[in-house]
């Protein structure tokens, strides 16, 4: 009788793994692919050359007026000179520290939520959602403890963009969950209300919503009640994005197998326990790409408030471009605005990928 001994594992051939293996398998594995590789490299070289040559080598970095620039390359002096306006809008110079405090506080909270080693995540999240907005509002708006009031008309730039985006994101999420659950409810009235809400807001363009909020709404309101323009924009954006969020959440809910609902029912969990403990935690995990997609869209859509006279980052860059002292800096201005938007959106995207990997318990 022979005994069975499994053969030991051998290492794979050296040219199929590592950098060399990857290059061989992906870049030089056939004649068309080799040609494509060289064409690709050439295009990358052209682009990189222009960016380095125009953006760094021939660019001007020092100065404080337009004539300090040679105009052969980029004129980053333009960005420097307008930097405070781009970030803080028309916030009074002596009060800018208040915005900075809010930025730093937000940064600390965000870092505490993202870095895994930090304990008490639940408490930090609760503070970020309830305590922080109140502190931020009183710091930015002022009017208490001797802080000078800064009317929202003076808010602008990146600060306004972030305020709109954060309020929109935080407020539209629960609205989305509520209407998604409503649309799947067994109760006909709740279901009908949810469907009407979602289909109405998805059917109108955001620009219309903002116009309605800023022009039409005051006509319907009684004399003397003056709801702040910024708040009206926030409400419009939130309700609008809430409808999109609801459909993303509904998609996630539908992807959860029926067996999960049945198992929760069979154990005697109530509807809210079933949703809160079993269905939503699983569904939200599936929804992360869709949710972040909506958040990114919302972040970029905030620049539409330009049309109702709010000056977000993009509109303030545009107004700087029309300044007679600074003619012809559109490339630098739009590149800067684009870069800032891209940084935030890319950050959200990366964080969502990390979150997905962290929450994935199914195939470990």
């Amino acid at each position, binding site marked *: 009788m022979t005994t069975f001994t499994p053969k030991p594992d051998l290492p794979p051939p050296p040219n199929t793994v590592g950098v060399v293996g990857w290059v061989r398998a992906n870049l030089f594995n056939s004649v068309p692919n080799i040609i494509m590789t060289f064409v690709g490299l050439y295009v990358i070289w052209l682009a990189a050359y222009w960016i380095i040559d125009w953006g760094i080598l021939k660019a001007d970095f020092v100065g404080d007026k337009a004539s300090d620039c040679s105009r052969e390359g980029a004129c980053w002096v333009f960005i420097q000179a307008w930097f405070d306006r781009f970030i803080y809008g028309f916030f009074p110079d002596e009060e800018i520290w208040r915005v900075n405090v809010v930025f730093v506080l937000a940064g600390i909270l965000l870092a505490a939520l993202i870095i895994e080693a930090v304990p008490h995540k639940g408490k930090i999240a609760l503070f970020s959602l309830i305590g922080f907005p109140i502190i931020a509002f009183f710091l930015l708006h002022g009017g208490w403890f001797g802080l000078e009031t800064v009317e929202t008309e003076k808010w602008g730039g990146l600060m306004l963009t972030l305020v709109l985006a954060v309020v929109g994101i935080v407020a539209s999420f629960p609205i989305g969950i509520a209407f998604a659950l409503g649309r799947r409810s067994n109760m006909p009235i709740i279901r009908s209300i949810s469907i009407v809400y979602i289909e109405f807001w998805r059917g109108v363009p955001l620009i219309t919503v903002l116009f309605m909020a800023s022009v039409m709404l005051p006509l319907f309101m009684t004399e003397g009640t003056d709801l702040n323009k910024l708040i009206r924009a926030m409400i419009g954006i939130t309700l609008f994005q809430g409808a999109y969020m609801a459909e993303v959440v509904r998609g996630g809910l539908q992807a959860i197998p029926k067996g999960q609902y049945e198992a929760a029912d069979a154990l005697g969990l109530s509807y809210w*326990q079933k949703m809160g403990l079993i269905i939503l935690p699983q569904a939200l*995990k599936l929804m992360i790409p869709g949710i972040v997609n909506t958040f990114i869209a919302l972040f970029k859509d905030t620049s539409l408030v330009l049309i109702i006279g709010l000056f977000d980052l993009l509109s303030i860059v545009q107004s700087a471009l029309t300044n007679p002292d600074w003619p012809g800096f559109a490339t630098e201005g739009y590149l800067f605005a684009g870069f800032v938007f891209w940084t935030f959106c890319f950050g959200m995207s990366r964080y969502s990928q990390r979150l997905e990997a962290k929450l994935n*318990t199914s195939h470990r």
Partner: protein
Amino acid sequence: MTEQNANTEAARKVMIEMRNVNKWYGQFHVLKDINLTVYKGERIVICGPSGSGKSTTIRCINRLEEHQAGDIIVDGTELTNDLKNIEQIRREVGMVFQHFNLFPHLTVLQNCTLAPIWVRKMPQKEAEEIAMKYLERVKIPQQAHKYPGQLSGGQQQRVAIARSLCMNPQVMLFDEPTSALDPEMIKEVLDVMIELAEEGMTMICVTHEMGFAKTVADRVIFMDQGQIVEENNPHEFFDNPQNERTKLFLSQILDH
């Protein structure tokens, strides 16, 4: 054994009573006048061809399916549209599914403690002790901190049984618990079920495991086209089936 059962039946407590239960899926009449009385401590196996309504029958007992006519009374509580009654009955009735239906985002231990903590309002520590006790009984305490996705099918089904037992149910319903398992894992699940039966748990099992039916069942019920066709003790049921449909079914399932 049957005579003994018959003698003591009158004195025994009725666990589940189904009277003239009817159910339709649209035009399709799935359950036709189902009458079934289950006494405390009884082990019942329901078998029959696919689509005969056997799963639907037991799913009506804890209201995963709604019956449209007739009465279902579980441990003295009548199953109506009243949410209180439904939740009361679900607390007392454990269920094990064909596809386990464990919660993949929770560990094995969390799967077991969730319902005791939230439904029975048990302190976490006590719930965990009880969960570990039942995980030991189904012989997988060492897997308590893993996620369901890391376990084999047989292990997952044993966790599902432990999860139901943690609610300390009066009745256990098994809906084809071994049908989705690889052959070498069926035995480990059946062993747990046999042990449970020996401890006196009231059980209703929908299963095709005829060996299990012969060993543990007090009564075997054969269903076809939404009706209970035959009902007998396992000895009589397998050796001396009365109905043509039963004979045909048994010949198909046993002769290979």
